[in-house]
């Protein structure tokens, strides 16, 4: 909400804020609303009035007037690609017969005249101009609903014009480019001015005749960090066409056929985000179900309803997807990282310690801690304790290739997607002399690279560059790398190690006391667990790995088991309400032990069991771990004939062996090696004896074990 205030979004009507709190249940969701002669549907883009008063005095012109004669309509008009001014073809000197192909620049721009000065008479201004002048907003309707009192509302996702982003309008921004934000607000439909059309760049370049209110949008803009993210493709062309036909019903304004933004990178990938149909699909399902018993049962982590049982609450608190308010037991590491970030953000400090390497086994809260620190920094930022900065996070395993790092970083910083080679070049220039850049670009940037070890290439150049940039004077870049191995810097080339290994934080596995604290912290507010049960679970996990995820999953499983037990209903026990030792015990056996091998062996068919015993027999006879199928089959027929069983055919036996190999009870070569196939037990031979000791259908088998 604070972000919103910064940017000056405010709901049009004063009633808005109070209305926010009304419950979902009172609303009636619809997919289209008719209001003030307009039909608005979910997924459409609209202009939204900024202030109610400002709108009245300007007429709502959809058509722009000619810059020369000042008249509206009439002839075919052409649009200047530089100033977006409209001209009648006939008013030009010399008059044009038809709209020329390619870019067309008006005579004023050619003479480099200032555009805004000349008209003494008052010009009509179109909604497009007012939007670009930040007098209107554009938004995409994501939901529509009727409040209990019958007033129509919508929730809209805002678009920004390039000037509203932190980096301002940049040379590669198109004149009709917008940025989509993650920010969604609820407003009354009353505040909608009318439709506009926001396309993906590709559709935008195709669409040439949709009137003045067309824009294109290629990037998501993250307002917190001032970073750009390419919008993923969810395009749906059927719907698009439908929309285009609608648009063509409106008054047309013929403009230059070529509106392709000047620097949109050419890509084959169809990016876009026209999610209209998708949204409709989803929200229809949503609205249909509202109020039914089914949805009420659905639990959201943030609102723990009253009708939940203690166990259900506990389960939600324990699930990995729940983000806890704070991270207990990592205070020391938290402080270290925070100190690093604050230090590094201090201006004029030309130290070399701008790289931090964080190591630790999985599930020890490395990424969570860093993100938590960043959240705190954000708070400090809002109280102006520290200077503004930018934050870019990436994950080594999410990249297509290690080199992709450059592309992602460059795109996040500038909103321009380039090939990695070009991106590398530009980034290199950028970090060599950061001082020359103005505005938001001169802010320090914190780069978080998760799973750093995945970026190791043969020449290790990606890592070298990543850790070399922060060491350059005035680069204002700091890198936080996260990986599992503690000695990753030592494994790398010395020139990288010397740069990245200076400051390190290492996360040790949690001890059982810490795990216990974490679990109890998550469970605060519910009394579902017995104290001893939590301690048992955390001791068990700490002994194995000290992995917090594992501990949480274990407790969640225990909760599920307890729920199962309660449902099956032995309620006479007084203590069944709580999750106790027995449940945790059951969950532990399920998760940690591998009883599978023995159970699977016990459930094998008869001859498969004999096969296993023959393997053990051979092993004891020869003392060799590895044997061949030939030997095993001989042992098998020996066992069978000595105990009155019909020995199976060799072919059948071979397939039995292969099946056992498939389950990895045995390790074996391919079956086509027949007699020469090498076989080996995949586990200690004692397991076989243990599993088959008292087997009912083969009582004689014990004497061979």
């Amino acid at each position: 909400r604070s972000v919103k205030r910064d940017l000056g979004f405010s709901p049009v009507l004063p009633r808005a804020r109070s209305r926010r709190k009304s419950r979902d249940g009172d609303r009636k969701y619809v997919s289209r609303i008719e209001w003030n002669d307009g039909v608005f549907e979910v997924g459409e883009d609209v202009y939204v009035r900024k202030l109610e008063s400002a709108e009245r005095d300007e007429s709502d012109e959809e058509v722009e007037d000619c810059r020369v004669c000042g008249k509206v309509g009439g002839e075919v008009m052409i649009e200047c690609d530089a100033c977006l001014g409209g001209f009648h073809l006939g008013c030009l000197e010399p008059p044009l017969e038809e709209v020329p192909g390619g870019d067309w620049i008006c005579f004023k721009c050619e003479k480099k005249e200032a555009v805004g000065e000349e008209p003494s008479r008052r010009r009509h201004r179109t909604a497009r101009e007012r939007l670009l002048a930040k007098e209107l907003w554009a938004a995409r309707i994501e939901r529509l609903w009727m409040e209990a009192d019958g007033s129509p509302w919508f929730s809209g996702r805002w678009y920004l014009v390039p000037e509203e982003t932190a980096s301002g309008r940049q040379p590669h921004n198109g004149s009709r480019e917008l940025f989509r934000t993650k920010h969604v607000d609820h407003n009354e439909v009353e505040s909608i001015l009318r439709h506009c059309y926001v396309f993906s760049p590709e559709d935008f370049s195709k669409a040439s005749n949709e009137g003045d209110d067309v824009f294109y949008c290629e990037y998501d803009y993250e307002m917190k960090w001032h970073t750009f993210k390419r919008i993923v493709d969810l395009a749906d062309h059927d719907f698009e066409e439908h929309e285009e036909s609608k648009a063509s019903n409106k008054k047309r304004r013929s403009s230059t056929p070529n509106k392709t933004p000047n620097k949109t990178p050419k890509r084959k990938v169809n990016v876009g985000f026209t999610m209209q149909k998708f949204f409709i699909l989803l929200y229809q399902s949503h609205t249909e179900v509202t109020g039914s018993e089914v949805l009420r049962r659905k639990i959201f982590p943030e609102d723990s309803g009253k009708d939940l049982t203690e166990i259900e609450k506990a389960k939600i608190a324990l699930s990995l997807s729940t983000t806890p308010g704070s991270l207990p037991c990592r205070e020391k590491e938290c402080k270290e990282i925070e100190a690093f970030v604050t230090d590094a953000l201090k201006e004029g400090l030309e130290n070399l310690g701008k790289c931090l390497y964080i190591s630790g086994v999985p599930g020890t809260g490395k990424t969570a801690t860093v993100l938590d620190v960043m959240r705190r920094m954000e708070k400090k930022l809002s109280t102006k304790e520290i200077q503004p900065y930018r934050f870019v996070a990436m994950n080594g395993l999410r990249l297509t290739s290690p080199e992709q790092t450059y592309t992602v970083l460059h795109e996040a910083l500038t909103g321009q997607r380039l090939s990695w080679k070009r991106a590398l070049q530009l980034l290199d220039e950028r970090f060599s002399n950061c001082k020359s850049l103005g505005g938001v670009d001169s802010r320090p940037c914190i780069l978080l690279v998760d799973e750093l070890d995945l970026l190791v290439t043969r020449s290790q150049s990606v890592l070298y560059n990543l850790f070399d940039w922060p060491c350059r004077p005035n680069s204002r870049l700091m890198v936080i790398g996260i990986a599992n191995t503690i000695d990753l810097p030592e494994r790398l080339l010395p020139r990288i190690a010397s740069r990245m290994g200076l400051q390190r934080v290492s996360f040790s596995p949690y001890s059982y006391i810490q795990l216990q604290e974490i679990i109890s912290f998550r469970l605060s507010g519910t009394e579902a667990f017995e104290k001893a049960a939590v301690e048992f679970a955390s001791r068990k996990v700490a002994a194995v790995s000290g992995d917090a995820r594992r501990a949480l999953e274990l407790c969640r499983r225990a909760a599920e088991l307890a729920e199962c037990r309660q449902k099956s209903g032995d309620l006479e026990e007084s203590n069944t309400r709580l999750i106790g030792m027995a449940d945790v015990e059951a969950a532990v056996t399920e998760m940690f032990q591998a009883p599978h091998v023995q159970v699977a062996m016990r459930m094998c068919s008869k001859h498969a069991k004999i096969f296993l015993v023959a393997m053990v027999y051979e092993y004891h006879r020869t003392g060799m771990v590895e044997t061949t199928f030939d030997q095993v089959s001989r042992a098998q027929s020996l066992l069978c004939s000595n105990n009155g069983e019909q020995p199976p055919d060799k072919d059948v036996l071979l397939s039995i062996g292969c099946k056992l190999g498939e389950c990895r009870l045995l390790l074996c070569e391919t079956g086509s090696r027949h007699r020469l196939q090498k076989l080996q037990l995949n586990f200690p031979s004692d397991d076989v004896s243990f599993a088959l000791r008292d087997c009912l259908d083969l009582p004689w088998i014990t004497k061979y074990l």
Partner: protein
Amino acid sequence: MDAAMQILRCRLYDPRASPVFASAEENRRKLYDLFRHTICQACNNSALLLGPRGCAPNVGARARFERNPGDFSGSNFDRREDLLFVISPLKLLFCCFRSQVRLNGLLHADDRSALKEIAKQLCVEHELEFSKAASFEENLRFLTVILEQFSLSHKALVLVLDEFDLFAQKPKQSLLYNLLDLLQSPSSQAAVIGISCRLDADQLLEKRVRSRFSQRKILFLPPPSEEITRFLEAVLVIPVDSSANLAQHANAFNAKISAWLQMETTKELVNKLAALDSSPRNIIDSVFRNLLDYLKNTKSTTPKHPPTICALADLSVLELFLLTSMKRLENKERDTYTFNSVFKEYQDGYKSSDSYSKKAAYKAFEHLLERELIGYSDGRAVSTLSHLRPVKMLISFEELEQGLEASPICPATLRQWYSQPGDLSMFSLITFSWNVSAEA
């Protein structure tokens, strides 16, 4: 009649419709709970279904989904009408809040194409446009976005990874990492189900992937032998309809089936199956032929010998001679032998002028190689001279002996030679050459 055929065909060939064993019922309940948690309580889950092929996880997972038939996007069922018929509210819930993606480790060469396949299936289901050129990163972002949208509309995504072990064997395991990592984000509602026949599939996971995996394993096993008869009955007995005409037929058929189940031969067959491999698929495959013979009153056409013996019985005399020479060489404790040494052994044993030429013998030798009765033991490429490459017999002596017995054209001398350690005597040579010329 048609309806009955339809039912039987479904049960026999469609794993979804086949009845479930009592032991699998427990697993079914576990899976059901797991999905219920994912769908109703927005708990993200991951699980591994393990078990040998044929009996198995696959059936389990599908049987699960069979309970919730109508897919959200595909069906336009009327909810109110459904409500009347559907007793369990869960069933209804599953119908409309689920979307499913299936992958198979055998089909996707690498993580990139697998992720592309996920995106494609989602696009098809939701009528979105799929772009072929999207990179791994873009597809991943698409998946994140679509999961966000799903959870906004309380729709769960179920990802089924068949042949899970193959995904785990890919370098970096980036697909598994990312899928399991998505489960950790609060804005997604999904379940990842891995299916594998390797019991140690979870050991293949890298540390960081294993930490994200929930360690739930469900084991599917072949049914105990006592259940097989019951299973067959469940598969084959047709439900008796109310209408008189059909009921008569159905009753007659059912009577026939139960008579067949009581027969000694059937019981023997079932016992044999239980001793060898009792997975449902195998049972259905092998029992079906027997049942058909019974219903049509025909003699069973099962071959007399196991396949290897049949293959041996079909060989020519020269090929049998070569095999026997190999056996003799092995008896002389020669571990490896080449074509040349085998041919020498043959010539030593058969010192007559009308023995086959080396070329003919080589042809026969190649034929044996093709039938995989013998094989090169060095396992290297073809580059070296094939006459000098070491070979090994791939069949055992007992099989060879049985094959000689079964072969209709095997001369008596060859059998003798097989059992005798030394060379053939002069007398047997004469009879043998006579035999050969008679055949020629």
